[in-house]
């Protein structure tokens, strides 16, 4: 007997932001996302200084800078937003704080536990990105980090949907981040890590018209997926699709499979110009 289907509840997308080594124009024009997911140069985060004038970013780790850049480009911290207590944040990632985790482990190994760096530890915690986003954007609603491997984007959308349709927030900044750190690539090549980057979608409860993304429809896959489980893949594909100016109702359907989970997540995206 098959599992009862999951509803394709819509989330309204009101903002999209990228932080990518090839830059937004290249990403939006890309026909093939694979090179963007593997071979992109490090992201230039220097524009954060202009986007957050007067704010010290001295100790902000790279993971958080990537997330912050994507969120600001999606409209976070801007005008015409709900009260900060009605905004939420959900960060999806396979790994958080690669550079700070390596910093802390290096300090333990180089200096001994007694002299290891407490600052590095505190910025290596898994919700570091969410906490710093909340701090810099002034967001005081529910904030969560979900780390479900290749399913992290789907998990982040699911979580955002729960917050919005549970009336716990009126807008949720859904941010998926992949951080690059050469130390981790050198010491842990068996962990699937792609090129660094971040994508942010501003999502709200569906209001009958506009761009939308559906909640995941979870199902059992017919066969294992051979595609390497890169966290950023579905988020980048979704964000690129949302920028297309076409009249067809379905922009793309994304499938993400995590082999250990034996489950397929399908995300449907479409423009809808007429009332539903």
């Amino acid at each position, binding site marked *: *007997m*098959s*599992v*009862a289907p*999951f*509803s394709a509840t819509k989330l309204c997308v009101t903002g999209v932001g990228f932080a990518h080594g090839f830059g937004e124009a290249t990403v939006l024009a890309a026909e093939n996302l694979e090179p963007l997911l593997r071979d992109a140069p490090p992201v230039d985060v220097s524009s954060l200084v202009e986007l957050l004038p007067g704010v010290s970013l001295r100790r902000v780790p790279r993971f958080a800078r990537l997330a912050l850049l994507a969120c600001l480009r999606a409209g976070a911290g801007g005008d015409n937003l709900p009260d*900060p*207590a009605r905004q939420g944040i959900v960060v999806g990632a396979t*790994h958080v*704080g690669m550079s700070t*985790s*390596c910093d*802390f*482990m290096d300090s*333990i*190994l180089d200096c001994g*536990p007694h002299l*290891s760096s*407490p600052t590095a*530890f*505190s910025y*290596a*915690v898994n*919700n*570091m990105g*969410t*906490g*710093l986003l*909340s701090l810099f954007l002034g*967001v*005081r*609603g*529910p*904030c*969560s980090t*979900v*780390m*479900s491997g290749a399913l992290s984007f789907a*998990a982040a959308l*699911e*979580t955002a*949907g*729960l917050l919005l*349709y*549970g009336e*716990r927030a009126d807008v949720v900044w859904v941010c998926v981040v992949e951080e690059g750190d050469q*130390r981790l690539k050198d*010491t*842990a090549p*068996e*962990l*699937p890590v792609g090129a660094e980057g971040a994508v942010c979608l501003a999502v709200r409860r569906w209001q009958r018209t506009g761009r939308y993304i559906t909640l*995941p429809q*979870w*199902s*059992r896959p017919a066969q294992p997926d051979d595609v390497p489980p890169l966290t950023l893949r579905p988020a980048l594909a979704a964000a690129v699709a949302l920028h297309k100016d076409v009249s067809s109702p379905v922009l793309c359907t994304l499938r993400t499979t*995590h082999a*250990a*989970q034996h*489950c397929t997540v399908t995300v449907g995206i479409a423009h809808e110009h007429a009332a539903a």
Partner: protein
Amino acid sequence: MSTVSVAVVGMGCVCALGSGVDPVFAALRAGGQRPVAPRCLGPDALPFPVFSVDEALFVGGRLRSAADTLTLARHAAREALAQAGHGETSERLGVVVGTTAGTSLHFLEGYATRRSGSTAPCPDIEGLPAANPALALAAQYQAVGPVLTVSNACTSGADAIGLGLELIRQGRCDRVLCGGADALSLVPHTGFARLTVASAERCRPFDVARKGLNLGEGAAMLVLQRADLAPQQTILGYVTGYGSGADAHHFTTPHPQGRGLTAAVDMALRDAARTAADMAFVNVHGTATHDNDLVEGFVVSTALPHVPIWAGKGATGHTLGAAGAIEAVLTLAALRAGVVPASPGFVQPDPAIGLSPTQCEHPLTLRQAISLSLGFGGSNSALILSVSEGGRP
């Protein structure tokens, strides 16, 4: 406020007090034991005591990797699902697990090996993806549904249950396995010591002489289901309210007036359509750090006035990602038993807080309680558990 009543139909728990909800709660009522030297973390561990589980739970010994967290999660999940019974084959089963060590890059041994230039196999690195607790449990139980590994520092377990509550209320799942798990790990043990928030003696929540926290380990799971679809005899209690909010104040220290925690408490009470006066007791986060207890005491005195306080970390330690879930299970166990336990480690009140947790066991007359959690990054959560449907007093 949702009108969907969400029942707890299964519970599981493992921590320093024992294995199994009933043995754990009995040990808690008996006062628990003191923390022990961190021998399980190896010879390099700083000398701050911990609340560790029975080593026999790790068949073949600890792996000193994220896999240890998964081992504890499996124990708790097995108990909870055995109690809940088998669901339907067409069931949409969600899995939501809070953790910190289960997904962290804390593979110190492997990192040290590889840093030296060796290419030798490192099980703690290779095994990290497969150790993700929500993904692993979903695969083990062939769950088809949302798989969320929640990593919100010390509110992870509570947030996992809160999200599980919403999955049922919103009809996204028929049942949800939700909770938290964290095994002791050398990296955070070192980190908390270096942040000077760890105590070299048994922690003393809300006590005037408190010197910081003791880390602990464990796991707790709940199985949630819509109450009107659950056989009455399987219902252990209800999750009736959940609230969460961020301080947006400072990354490691809470807002001095507990802005985010107050918002979480208010949201949870509204969610449950209850008031502070309806609460039999409040289970505080009570880490025994100077800042946490001061701020939490302020919030409890203003948002939950006159509600008896139970602080449990003097018996379990601070189990990080598992804490909110273990404390939710113990809160519900206390409501079912009709007693609020004593608060181990608390001896003398702090005048700056002005509140005293329970020093001996008390009988309960009210039927719901609220459990609080605070975490790094300004994360705050509140859960309301009840033994009456709809949280009626």
